[in-house]
């Protein structure tokens, strides 16, 4: 029943969007009526999504999708998240988020009616493309041809609170770029005043903030769930999310800097098209199963070809309009050796090179396999050796960019910065000399601290300190950059100065971690609702003679016959102590302990960046 409701409302929603799309050419609509239709189709799409969710919640196994991916023993939250834990459901989520964005955009005030209408027509066009994709190749409402009483379960690796919310937030980021894309294309067609830039800025900030949150959640999940001790693996799916993130960053910065320069406006249009194209391309790479990763879903060539076609149409259409309706160039850029505009241009170039480098590394295996029929994989070493050096000059520039002038080469208080930089360099050199020296560690720490220091100097020397909302809005760019600095310190320390210790232990053994005694108490097995758990319990002496218990082990999920590893992490502000329980051999358990310094700084930095994103949305 819920399946039929879901399917019919989906088809009906696509129909309305088709009608709206035609309205540009055939039926003419009043603005009010048009917006009403858009909202109605959004509500229908959501109805479709929620009927699928309902089928999951009540474990309606007459729905083939629910049967394949759910199980009646699963806790309620994972029944709900099971809705998007599979290919079909996640595509419906994609479409629903697209609808939500259209819905809210239809309420935007103070933009020209025709412009808003055209933007929404392009949204309707995207809705049709992805809607048809769902109906023809990924229908989540298929009826199960056999009567069954039990489902086949959900991938246990996905039964995790972090991952339950990761896809919706990440998708909100990806799909949010669709509005920016539509705005840019509508802007090209209408070539009106610059009002659209402010609208685009708001939406691109929303998307970017969501994308940041989505990537960070995925990364955090990988950190404690995959049990490899790291938080970033240059997995193809991670790369795919990083590309629109970096180009989105370039877009957000360009939008904040633009002051009517035609060249930058043109660049903004290009970035808007690029961001959404990369999002769709990412969807294609994941959904076609063309790349293997932890996110592999059932691969299907027809799906792949359909979504490749969508990618081709969307991107091709975008760049073709860009080619034909290119904004006229009238004034040139005010480029000086070092002013705001030149810093912006340099940073944009670096970000685009970084994006292209990641793109090349990601699709290189496909090209090689087509040409030479050989399977290769491009991983961490390539990306670390290329992307990081490209980003470094950008980070350096970033520390001073907010205080650069528009018109001159002069930097206010430049002496303060020079002195601060010299002192900082000496401190970091001393640190490296007395502790273990590592080139990357040195560069990373210097950059991270320098960005924070320069931003703090800028805040205190350029503005009068006041505690009110307006002040926080003014210093927001510096706050965002402090977030980046903190994240860089976390990234550097946790990757360069990571320490690994291996032990073979019996129950009751004591061992030494970082000068502290740890007791391997016992192994415990318990039966939970939908899995069996095996846990090693460790008693860790912390400061002030308080001991903390850490559990590390594995879960076994009988329905899907999978084992997942559950790392035990002791979080401290300056380090994470990360326990992994290995195999048992000759009555001894293999235990790996990783000491990851300053991991918490990464999450703190990300939270600060997201906070700044939110503040920037409210600032005009």
């Amino acid at each position, binding site marked *: 029943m819920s399946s039929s409701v879901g399917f019919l409302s989906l088809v009906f929603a696509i129909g309305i969007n088709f009608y709206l799309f035609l309205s540009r050419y055939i039926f003419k609509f009043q603005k009010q009526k048009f917006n009403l239709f858009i909202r109605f189709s959004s509500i229908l799409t959501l109805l479709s999504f929620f009927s699928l969710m309902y089928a999951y919640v009540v474990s309606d196994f007459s729905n083939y999708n629910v049967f394949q991916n759910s199980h009646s023993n699963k806790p309620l939250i994972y029944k709900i998240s099971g809705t998007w834990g599979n290919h079909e459901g996640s595509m419906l989520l994609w479409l629903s988020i697209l609808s939500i964005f259209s819905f809210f955009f239809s309420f935007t005030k103070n933009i020209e009616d025709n412009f808003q209408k055209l933007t929404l027509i392009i949204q309707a066009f995207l809705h049709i493309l992805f809607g048809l994709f769902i109906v023809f190749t990924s229908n989540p409402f298929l009826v199960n041809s056999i009567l069954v009483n039990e489902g086949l379960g959900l991938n246990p690796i996905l039964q995790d609170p972090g991952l339950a919310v990761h896809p919706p937030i990440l998708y909100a980021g990806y799909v949010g770029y669709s509005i920016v894309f539509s705005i840019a294309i509508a802007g090209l067609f209408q070539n009106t005043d610059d009002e659209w830039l402010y609208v685009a800025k708001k939406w691109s900030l929303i998307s970017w903030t969501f994308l940041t949150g989505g990537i960070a959640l995925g990364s955090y999940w990988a950190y404690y769930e995959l049990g490899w001790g790291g938080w970033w693996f240059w997995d193809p799916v991670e790369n795919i999310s990083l590309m629109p993130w970096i180009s989105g960053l370039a877009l957000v910065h360009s939008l904040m800097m633009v002051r009517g320069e035609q060249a930058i406006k043109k660049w903004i249009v290009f970035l808007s*098209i690029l961001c959404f194209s990369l999002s769709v391309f990412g969807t294609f790479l994941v959904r076609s199963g063309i790349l293997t990763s932890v996110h592999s879903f059932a691969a299907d060539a027809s799906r*792949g070809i359909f979504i490749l076609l969508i990618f081709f149409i969307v*991107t091709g259409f975008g*760049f073709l309009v860009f080619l034909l309706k290119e904004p006229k160039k009238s004034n040139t850029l005010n480029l000086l050796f070092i002013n705001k505009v030149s810093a912006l241009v340099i940073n944009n170039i670096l970000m685009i090179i970084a994006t292209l480098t990641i793109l090349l590394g990601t699709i290189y295996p496909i090209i090689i*396999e087509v040409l030479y029929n050989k399977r290769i994989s491009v991983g961490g070493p390539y990306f670390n050796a290329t992307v990081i050096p490209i980003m470094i000059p950008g980070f350096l520039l970033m520390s001073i960019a907010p205080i650069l002038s528009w018109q001159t080469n002069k930097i206010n208080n430049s002496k303060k910065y020079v002195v601060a930089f010299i002192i900082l360099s000496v401190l970091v050199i001393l640190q490296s000399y007395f502790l273990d020296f590592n080139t990357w560690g040195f560069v990373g720490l210097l950059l991270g601290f320098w960005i924070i220091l320069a931003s703090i100097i800028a805040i205190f020397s350029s503005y009068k300190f006041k505690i009110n909302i307006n002040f926080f809005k003014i210093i927001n760019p510096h706050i965002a950059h402090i977030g980046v600095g903190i994240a860089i310190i976390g990234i550097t320390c946790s990757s360069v100065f990571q320490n690994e210790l291996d032990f073979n232990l019996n129950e009751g053994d004591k061992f030494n971690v970082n000068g502290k005694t740890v007791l391997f108490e016992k192994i415990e097995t318990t039966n939970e609702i939908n899995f069996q758990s095996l846990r090693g319990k460790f008693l860790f002496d912390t400061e002030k003679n308080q001991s903390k218990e850490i559990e590390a082990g594995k879960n076994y999920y009988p329905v899907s016959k999978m084992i997942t590893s559950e790392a035990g992490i002791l979080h401290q502000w300056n380090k994470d102590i990360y326990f992994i329980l290995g195999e048992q051999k000759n009555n001894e358990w293999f235990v790996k302990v990783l000491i990851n310094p300053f991991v918490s700084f990464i999450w703190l930095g990300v939270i600060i960046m997201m906070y700044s994103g939110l503040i920037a949305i409210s600032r005009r």
Partner: protein
Amino acid sequence: MNRIFILTPLIVLLIICIFSLVYLLSGKDPNKPPSALLNKDVPIFESSSLYNAKDIIKTKDIKNKKTLINFFASWCSPCKIEHPLFFEIRKKYPELYLLGFNHKDPISDAKKYLKDDGNPYDFVGVDSDGLIALEFGVFGLPETYLVNEDGKIIYKFMGPITMDVLKNEIEPLL
């Protein structure tokens, strides 16, 4: 000059799409590497009969006879579709040994399925935990393997076998 810059994204787009399309059309799938088992020995397995837990079949029991191994389950609808074909094979090639593996199925459901639709197999082995399927590298049900007298896998088919597959691909090997 300026035009070239604006054309570049379109050219890059075209190149990416062409490579991806060729990749997809060539039937390559990173999740399904070419079967590593083809022309190799049958994996070592041991399974009890669906009807009598004491009745065990092992790898060496299928030596010296041509064997068709089929993985199926009561919950698998494509299996139901290919099911009648095994009776045809049974009739046409009485000397061929038909070995079915019941995959991740409750015993009662499996028995009911074979009672309702008939049992074409010489032996039905239980693979309730899917370990045998794992050894064979089964991706999804149904899957069918042909093993020759020397115990080598000479043919593998993924998905429900059809009359065409039977006539053109399996029969020439029998």
